[in-house]
């Protein structure tokens, strides 16, 4: 299983990233991707910007750990995670999770697993900029519930 974890300010290209996963193996049958988008209504209205901070070094290894845990649990051939940091605007892409596998069922499960754990375990922090100033977000209860589902086995 090939894992690629990137944290960057620049945008990413979903076409390039999915083809890169496709080319990992000639056994590739399907690629499932999740693309997170900055919404303009996170916890309150009038979000004008989103600032993202991470813990250099730790965040990357947390993402790799999550990806390898997914690779142990399901039959996957390649996982790419790209998370943007810095200043973003509504409708910007913020996170890409791509999982390629021989059979699509594994790719769907592994992709959702990775994004669910990434949301609750990886060291990123979001600050919304609104017309009334900035505010650090708190973790959503629904994200904890999403991650906890994977423990019920």
């Amino acid at each position, binding site marked *: 299983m090939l894992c690629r974890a990137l944290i960057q300010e620049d945008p990413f290209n979903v076409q390039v990233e999915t083809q890169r996963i496709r080319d990992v193996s000639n056994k590739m049958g399907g690629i499932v991707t999740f693309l997170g988008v900055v919404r303009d209504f996170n916890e309150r209205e009038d979000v004008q910007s989103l600032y993202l*901070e991470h*813990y250099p070094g730790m965040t990357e290894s947390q993402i790799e750990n999550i990806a390898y845990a997914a690779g142990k649990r399901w039959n996957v051939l390649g996982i790419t995670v790209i998370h943007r940091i810095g200043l973003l605007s509504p409708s910007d892409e*913020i996170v890409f999770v791509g999982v390629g596998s021989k059979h699509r069922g594994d790719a769907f499960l592994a992709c959702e697993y990775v994004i669910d754990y990434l949301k609750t375990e990886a*060291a990123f922090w979001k600050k919304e900029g609104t017309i009334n100033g900035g505010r650090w977000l708190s973790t959503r209860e629904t994200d904890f519930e999403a991650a906890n589902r994977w423990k019920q086995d």
Partner: protein
Amino acid sequence: MIRVLLFSSLREELNSSSVEVPALGISRISCLVEKLERLYGKSWGRVLKGENTLVAVNQTVVHDNHHIGDGDEVAFFPPVTGG
């Protein structure tokens, strides 16, 4: 020395992203927090002992009053909100 890192709202509240403190006499996270409080003021104790504050030692989140020592990197931050 022990390297202390602060992230997100904790960094902003304490107006500092990293400090180094001598490791002498510091064997646990609680000792480190007391030392930081003495060095930089009560707000450090309040923020670092906050109910929602998480601690990582050498880039691994620890859940109790972990042992630490010379050369360790100790980070304090709020719950994560990525993705």
